[in-house]
């Protein structure tokens, strides 16, 4: 979906919406969901009360202007945190809305009395209920998600996938699903509505993003607990500071206590935590994957094993002819011509690829009076009978060999050898004969997608094992598996094989993902930790999986893993950054608190901040503005580099740990220089 990917990070309308939301989110009930920020909320109220107290004449708490400034900064800290969440929501919603736009109210041709009904009533799409049946003809926009129960049609799905080539959807098979908003280009189909209005996957996704049904993921809960305990530790620090200060005969203002507290607690990660989670789902959506829960995205980062279908993921569509091997004594040109002739009527992709490889002008042949012999399961061969009595056949090795030997002709040994070679190299041999004499062999090969080896190597570095699933025989499967660089394969796979493989891996403690579309994939999709159903798949498959890929792109799994990893990493690095920041804040605030009674502590003021007031203000301001500064990082996610866990840890520790210690020293000093101009 190329158009959506370019959405800039901060679009004007989104900003406006998020700005409004950040005030609405000040509702205490909303705030309570985030324990860290809720304590800031309380701190803000305390500062408001202190300001009023001073306005009424209290003199021991410093100037009104100073206290008011602290209050305003705290208020902004809250707004910034709310804004982070709001902008993440707004972006996710905008993304979902652009998908939903495709399904604005369209008229639906409802069949009043079920499938056999002749009577058509025009209703609005929003009035369609689950189980209703509607008719779509060429040119119609499909009003609702549903399953084709009768007919076949070509459909333009570009509205959701961005792919302009039409796709074929038909009843009965694994490609029976249609999506609301797509357009029927030819033929007519009858479709049964599969979802209640407002309950489509997209609707569910929007609800997730908007927060109505968003639940904290297990990992988010664990992190919240850790952050809450840090918050408590710092609460103890600040509360016990009061008797300590009394002991040291140092009066400390309420503003200083509140400032110290707010600076120390992990507001940075606290403020950005939910934004990070939403952004994860949003990134999935940008990759055109609808997730049914935030947990699924998180789990994706932990995946150990990916089950990938060979066709479409590892190889490009179908086999292609790659070589012609004429038998001894057969002229190469003659053989090539025979190959092309045998495939003239062959509409399969393999047949077409033979003609492509032969590169002969087929129009030059006089085929008007020729008879084409169709492929049948019995003969396992196809071909052409030319007017002059020449019979050309093309087929499997043993089928042609039978034919040749039955006619009393010898089957050339070098051709048999060639067939064996091709088989063991993962190719499919087709033998061509003329008048029951073997002419030679055509080699068909799977074409491995360019760049797929690199992707698998990348996955291996992430610690993810790839498994190729194919209907091929074990020999061919092994060859392709090795060539593509997958770690394991399931050959001659039946749906239950996938299921068994998943169960086996899970018993070993691994997390498994698979992609599927057919109804017979549904159990495996449900069993997998991350099951990605193709949007074109059956309703059962989509129901069973926990993600739906709108592009029907089997390589999408790889992207999903990275999105999951990014999500966890962003949380980890920002937590580290947030905690590391405290070092500098301590060095700003603690000397400022005690400098009057213990002048020697001036030595700890290593940033040489202007005055106690400016030191405290600078620390709080830094604490506030770091939140919006980090919003882009929270939304985009920390880049994942497959360089191995230890190297990645070193890199992130250096960047966000050491960086997290140094940055605030510089930031607070700079802010202090500015603040000093006003004090």
């Amino acid at each position: 979906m190329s158009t959506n990917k370019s959405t800039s990070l901060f679009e004007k309308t989104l900003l406006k919406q998020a700005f409004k939301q950040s005030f609405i989110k000040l509702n205490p009930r909303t705030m309570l969901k985030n324990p860290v920020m809720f304590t800031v909320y309380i701190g803000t109220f305390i500062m408001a009360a202190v300001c009023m107290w001073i306005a009424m004449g209290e003199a021991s708490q410093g100037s009104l202007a100073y206290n008011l400034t602290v209050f305003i900064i705290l208020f902004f800290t809250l707004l910034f945190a709310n804004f982070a969440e709001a902008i993440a929501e707004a972006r996710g919603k905008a993304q979902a809305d652009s998908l939903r736009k495709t399904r604005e109210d369209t008229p639906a041709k409802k069949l009043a009395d079920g499938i056999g009904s002749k009577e058509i009533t025009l209703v609005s799409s929003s009035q369609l209920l689950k189980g209703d049946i509607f008719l779509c003809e060429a040119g119609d926009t499909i009003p609702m998600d549903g399953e084709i129960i009768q007919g076949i049609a070509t459909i333009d799905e570009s509205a959701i996938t961005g792919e302009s080539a039409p796709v074929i959807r038909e009843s009965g098979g694994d490609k029976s699903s249609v999506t609301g908003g797509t357009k029927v280009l030819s033929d007519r189909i009858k479709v049964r509505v599969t979802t209640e209005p407002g309950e489509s996957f997209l609707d569910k996704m929007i609800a997730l993003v908007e927060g109505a049904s968003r639940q904290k993921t297990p990992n988010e809960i664990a992190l919240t607990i850790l952050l809450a305990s840090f918050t408590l530790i710092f609460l103890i620090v600040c509360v016990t500071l009061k008797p300590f200060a009394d002991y040291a005969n140092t009066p400390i203002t309420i503003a200083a206590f509140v400032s110290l507290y707010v600076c120390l607690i992990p507001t940075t990660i606290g403020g950005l935590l939910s934004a990070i989670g939403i952004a994860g789902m949003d990134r999935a959506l940008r990759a055109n994957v609808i997730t049914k829960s935030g947990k699924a995205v998180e789990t994706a980062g932990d995946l150990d094993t990916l089950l990938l279908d060979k066709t479409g993921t590892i190889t490009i569509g179908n086999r292609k002819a790659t070589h012609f091997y004429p038998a001894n004594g057969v002229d190469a040109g003659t053989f090539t011509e025979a190959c092309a002739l045998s495939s003239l009527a062959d509409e399969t992709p393999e047949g077409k690829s033979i003609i492509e490889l032969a590169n002969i002008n087929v129009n030059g042949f006089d085929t008007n009076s020729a008879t084409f012999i169709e492929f049948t399961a019995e003969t396992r061969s196809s071909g052409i009978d030319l007017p002059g009595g020449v019979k050309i056949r093309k087929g499997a090795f043993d089928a042609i060999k039978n034919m040749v030997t039955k006619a009393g002709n010898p089957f050339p040994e070098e051709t048999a050898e060639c067939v064996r070679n091709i088989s063991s190299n993962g190719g499919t041999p087709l033998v061509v004969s003329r008048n029951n004499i073997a002419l030679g062999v055509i080699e068909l090969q799977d074409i491995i997608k360019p760049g797929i080896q690199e992707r698998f190597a990348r996955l291996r570095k992430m610690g993810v094992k790839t498994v190729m699933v194919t209907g091929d025989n074990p020999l061919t499967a092994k060859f392709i598996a090795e060539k593509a660089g997958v770690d394991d394969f399931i050959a001659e796979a039946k749906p239950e094989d996938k299921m068994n493989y998943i169960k086996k891996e899970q018993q070993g403690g691994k997390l498994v993902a698979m992609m599927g579309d057919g109804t017979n994939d549904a159990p495996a999709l449900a069993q997998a930790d991350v099951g990605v159903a193709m949007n074109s798949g059956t309703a059962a498959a989509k129901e069973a999986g926990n993600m739906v890929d709108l592009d029907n792109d089997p390589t999408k799994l790889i992207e999903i893993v990275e999105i999951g990893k990014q999500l966890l990493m962003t949380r980890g690095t920002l937590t580290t950054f947030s905690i590391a920041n405290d070092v500098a804040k301590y060095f700003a605030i603690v000397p400022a608190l005690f400098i009057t009674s213990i002048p020697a502590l001036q030595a700890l003021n290593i940033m040489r901040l202007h005055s106690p007031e400016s030191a405290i203000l600078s620390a709080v301001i830094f604490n506030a503005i770091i939140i919006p500064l980090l919003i882009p990082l929270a939304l985009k996610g920390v880049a994942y580099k497959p360089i191995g866990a230890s190297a990645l840890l070193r890199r992130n520790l250096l960047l966000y740990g050491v960086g997290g210690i140094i940055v605030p020293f510089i930031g607070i000093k700079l802010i202090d220089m500015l603040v000093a101009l006003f004090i």
Partner: protein
Amino acid sequence: MNTELTGIILTFVLTVLLAFPLGKYMAKMFAGERTITDFMNPVERFIYRIAGIDANKPMNWKQFLMAMLSINCLWIFYAFFLFLNQSHLPLNPDGNPDMSPDLSFNTAISFVVNCNLQHYSGESGVTYFTQLFVITFLQFVSAATGIACAVALFNGLKHKTTENLGNFWSIFTRAITRVLLPISIVIAIVLAFNGTPASFDGKDTITTLQGDTVNVSRGPAAGMIAIKHLGTNGGGWFGTNSAHPFENPGYFTGMLELAAQMLIPIALLFALGFYIKRKKFAWMIFGIMTIGILILAVPTINWEMSGSPALHKMGILQSNGAMEGKEVRFGAAFSGFWSIMTTVISTGSVNAMHDSTMPMSGAMQMLAMLINAFYGGCGVGLLNYYIYIIIAVFIGGLMVGRTPEFFGHKVEAREVKIAALVTLLSAFIIKGGTALAAYYFTSHGHADWAVKPEAWLNNPGSHGFSEMFYEFTSANANNGSGFEGLGDNNIFWNLTTGLAMIFGRFLPIIGPVAIAGLLAKKKYVPETAGTLKTDSLTFGVLTFAIIIIITALSYFPPLVLGPIAEWLG
């Protein structure tokens, strides 16, 4: 090289050389393999039979902790009542009186929890009977409790999936019969030969050169002094602890006592590596802990050897370093090193007055106790380090983009919650306690207690603050050393530090054992290239950074107000 430093390095190297085979032996012994101490089998079987214990019964983490807590609870009552009535019991040649209830409460807890905070003086506060049958007894069993809980952790780490953390009674008994008792006997004999008394006679009377008559306390001390160090207990027979010429007669016994307290904590690290067959992991922990100790010890030794800047200003030559409060036979460097080892290892036996060390040395001693996980106490040091590992695993795991896992077990909300609570707890106890003390000192100075709050502190200002902060830090860390200069035998300090000790002991044991049990129960996740390697140097550095950051952030203000302010002032 300076001979003072040579002595320190020699002690350390010899200890590690002894700890390695001991660790290997302990791993084999606790795994139930054949060892040279199998001749103890009949003794143990006899103990199990009279106690009615099925020593082979597997225990899950809850059963293990229940067994551990119930027997510890019993000991507290036992000790409490004996201290209360000790004057009526035999073996009291000096006629020492009963303890007051609050002191008895404090002392009973103090020895059960391996803390050995002493608000009494050994010469006058206890009898030979309570020294032997309460204090020395508890010094054995509290050390064995710590070791048993560490072995429970080993069992949790060893297996892919298990509920069984081992049988508490069996591990506990073998820790005494096969580790603590044999080694203590050897140390006690060496001490006795070097001049530590081992007699049941009461005070001796000598006439000094001036003609004055002096009563000199003595007693069967050698055995207790051996286990006091070996079991990282630290409570002295005599009031001045290992600075006393009977308790620690010379430099050699100083080395022996120092080595004895380091021995088991280091050996347990090696035992971990052998037991769970992850030697690299154990070496990584050993390395990180040793670096941590060096960071604390090297500057301390330097400060102590350089002498007091205040005296320097007055033009007084201090060629031997800061000798105030130190014994000439040990010297500044050795005493400085001892002060760090005894605080970092939670022994708390002292050979010099910590109150008199340089301000920043005091800060280092406090930091050592606040961290409490570099080697650490018998068994519990490793448990404390495990909590830091869990937090490091959680943050580190996130940073590499996977749900955090430790040795194939996912670390989730419940484990994080326990680890966070344990971390939170010490911050609460130490700072809450100090705040309470500071509050009484400033606001209720005239409270009518045995020692009025205003009279608690020998020194006002920052140093006095350090004394109070040190006391709670020591109680919470189950260290037991005192900064001293604090009037601590009164109801306030006896009660508050008593509570600090009991919570500071058991919650940091319950937490890690529970986490180990919960994790071990989980499904095993095989390691992949994307898994955080917990035996790598990077992870070691991360754990170290987390230890430093958590400690620094939690305790920066009190450290600034106490030792740092004194140092700068």
